[in-house]
């Protein structure tokens, strides 16, 4: 009975969202009565949909295996936490969650925006119709409410073991929050175009929303990277897998978008860029959903293949993008600004930045789609791996960072004196050159790209240190959020360069109580234990590691065999210190009783995620301060 109620509530809310869309676009949206009505219908519809989700969560917690999806992805023996997170462990449920977030952003927007706001009703209308599109997709092609009747199974098939991890329970929600949060900016942009009044400053209104979604997206990607690092046992943080790339593209577009927003919320310059980017960000977010859920690309993450779903999504996204671009071209003249961008002004640097980001998005898109095109034309399977992306991303990022360096002192709508541009250069160059020379002689790094990355990464950080110095000593105005985020970027570049250059790994062959030496570290296999877990058996191997300073510590990597699916997984053991991670995984046991062990020294890897967190913090703080200063 509960299942039918949840199902019915979802259908009901779809209808209500549709009514909301119709009212907002086909009635006089300036009439306060209509705006109030639309706002109310939206709230009700959202609460109906939310309660449908809560009933579903209850069904999962109470092990209701007459729901097909829950029977396929949950299990009686799972802790409650994973029973809940099993909901978003596969296609149907994660789509459910996706729409919950989509409509939640709308609900928060609805509550926090006053009804006399001109664009409000239409923005809610755009959010509603997008929700209807996805709700129909959910209910028609991937129904999570499908039942097994009359006899439900006694136990469920269990969640995939590699997903039984606290981090994976929060990585998808964060990512989805980021993806769909841009619906506010998109909705406002469409409402603005529809209204056709250039004096409405929609850019100002969406800044904090967009920054908040950008922060969630950044956090979601960073969490996924961190999870892949310790759970999959490969030791890397980024694999240029198609599904990672389709998360990266909206991130790149969103980064360009929030930069562009800061320009166009101050003057009418760059409005066209900002509008196009708002459409691009949201369509790339949806495109990601299409790639992951249609199964057209082989990937570590893809859900099961279903051409029908792919077709629906493609048609829906195509329609949305087409309508937006048509509207955009009709209103193009409205957006034209007669102001010229002053050379060396902040706006000019932001336009350049847009071009760099555009190139990166284009290249990533090419890398994702090229195998499909190639196979279609030449009937030969290919894949595009890390070397291509490195060849594009490294030089472009470094060049963009050089421009970032010179943009730090630039001003809005004013050309900058070229002389003042080069003033702090001697100091920052001296410091960062010292770092590079140190790296060259002390750590014998000879790779030119690594040295260039070190130079440029550290020059940015040092330049911002000078900015902070001026702030404290001369009280010079400083955008502290920009300082934190860009120092994060500098740190990210340094960490990636060092990690790439200095990390090393080796497979060892070791018996109990034997000692092997790798890079002056003594590794001893002390003991093997069989330890039963709640829904798996595990073998734990205790290793004693002695570093060159004579300090010792224990690392316990593990192999698990899960009951429900008989699947074997590897749990890594990591000893983290300031500069490096010692990363241990165990492989198979050989016939002579010895074990294969993989040891990795991952240099500076933690700082990669730390720099992402710096960006997240900066984004959230700025979003918060903007939302408070809003009239």
């Amino acid at each position: 009975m509960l299942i039918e109620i949840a199902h019915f509530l979802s259908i009901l809310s779809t209808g209500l969202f549709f009514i909301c869309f119709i009212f907002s676009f086909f009635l006089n949206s300036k009439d306060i009565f209509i705006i109030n009505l639309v706002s109310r219908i939206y709230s009700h519809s959202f609460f109906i949909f939310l309660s449908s989700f809560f009933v579903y969560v209850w069904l999962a917690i109470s092990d209701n295996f007459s729901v097909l999806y829950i029977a396929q992805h949950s299990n009686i023996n799972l802790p409650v936490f994973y029973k809940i997170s099993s909901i978003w462990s596969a296609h149907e449920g994660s789509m459910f969650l996706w729409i919950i977030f989509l409509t939640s952003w709308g609900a928060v927007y609805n509550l926090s925006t006053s009804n006399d706001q001109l664009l409000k009703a239409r923005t809610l209308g755009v959010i509603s119709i997008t929700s209807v599109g996805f709700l129909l997709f959910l209910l028609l092609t991937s129904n999570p409410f499908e039942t097994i009747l009359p006899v439900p199974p006694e136990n469920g098939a269990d969640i995939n073991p590699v997903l039984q991890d606290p981090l994976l329970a929060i990585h998808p929600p964060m990512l989805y929050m980021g993806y769909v949060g841009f619906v506010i900016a998109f909705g406002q942009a469409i409402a603005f175009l529809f209204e056709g009044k250039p004096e409405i400053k929609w850019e100002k209104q969406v800044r904090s929303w967009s920054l908040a979604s950008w922060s969630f997206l950044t956090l979601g990607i960073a969490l996924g990277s961190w999870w892949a690092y310790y759970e999959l046992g490969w030791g890397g943080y980024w694999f240029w897998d198609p599904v990672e790339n389709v998360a990266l593209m909206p991130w790149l577009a969103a980064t360009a978008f929030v930069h562009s927003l800061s320009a166009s919320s101050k003057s009418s310059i760059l409005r066209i860029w900002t509008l196009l980017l708002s459409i691009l960000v949201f369509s790339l977010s949806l495109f990601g959903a299409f790639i992951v859920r249609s199964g057209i690309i082989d990937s570590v993450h893809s859900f099961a293949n279903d051409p029908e779903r792919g077709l629906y999504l493609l048609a829906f996204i195509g329609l949305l993008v087409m309508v937006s671009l048509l509207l955009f071209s009709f209103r193009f003249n409205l957006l034209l600004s007669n102001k010229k961008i002053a050379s060396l002004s902040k706006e000019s640097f932001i336009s350049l930045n847009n071009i760099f980001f555009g190139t990166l998005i284009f290249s990533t898109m090419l890398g994702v789609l090229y195998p499909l095109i190639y196979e279609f034309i030449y009937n030969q399977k290919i894949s595009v791996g890390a070397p291509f992306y490195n060849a594009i991303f490294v030089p472009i990022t470094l060049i963009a960072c050089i421009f970032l360096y010179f943009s730090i002192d630039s001003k809005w709508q004013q050309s900058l004196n070229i002389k003042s541009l080069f003033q702090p250069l001697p100091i920052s160059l001296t410091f960062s050159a010292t770092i590079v020379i140190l790296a060259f002689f002390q750590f014998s790094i000879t790779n030119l790209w690594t040295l260039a990355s070190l130079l440029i990464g550290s020059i940015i950080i040092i330049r911002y240190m000078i900015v902070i110095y001026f702030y404290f000593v001369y009280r010079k105005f400083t955008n502290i959020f920009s300082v934190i985020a860009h120092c994060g970027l500098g740190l990210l570049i340094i960490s990636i360069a060092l990690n790439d250059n200095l990390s090393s790994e080796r497979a060892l062959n070791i018996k109990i109580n034997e000692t092997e030496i790798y890079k002056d570290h003594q590794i001893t296999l002390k003991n093997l234990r069989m330890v039963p877990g709640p829904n798996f058996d595990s073998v734990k191997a205790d290793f004693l590691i002695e570093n060159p300073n004579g300090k010792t510590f224990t690392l316990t990597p593990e192999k698990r065999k899960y009951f429900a699916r008989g699947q074997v997984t590897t749990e890594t053991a990591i000893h983290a210190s300031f500069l490096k991670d010692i990363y241990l995984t165990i492989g198979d046991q050989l016939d002579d009783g010895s074990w294969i062990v993989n040891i990795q020294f991952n240099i500076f890897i933690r700082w990669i995620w730390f720099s992402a967190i710096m960006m997240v913090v900066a984004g959230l703080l700025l979003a918060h301060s903007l939302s408070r200063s809003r009239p």
Partner: protein
Amino acid sequence: MKAIRKQRLITVLLILATSATGSFLIIRALDSNLDFFFTPSEIFKEEIPNNKRIKVGGMVLEGSVLRDKTNISFVITDYQGSINVEFDGIVPDLFKEGSGVVVLGYLRDKTLVAEDVLAKHDENYMPPSIDIKN
């Protein structure tokens, strides 16, 4: 009026030229960094240079897995052709004799020296469809 037109023309040409060069460089980078995918029976029909990284996919031949300390060698087959693979490192948890595998590596004297071994079905978050009605 004419001067403005001329200026516009130059701007447009400049934009076109830069984007063309940019696209050319990107596509060149793409073409020189592709990993081609072969099955074991296709692999010796083509001339593949030693320095070209390739992907080979097939089944691990039953009884072909040999281990020596951390080295592992095995044969991939598609039941029409086969190729010997050598790898130093840990193979994935799903690696088994008689199951699917994809190897990324370089060809040396009719042997594939592996950089990476990926077990097939790693790509699938979903379980092999379990008949839960039983």
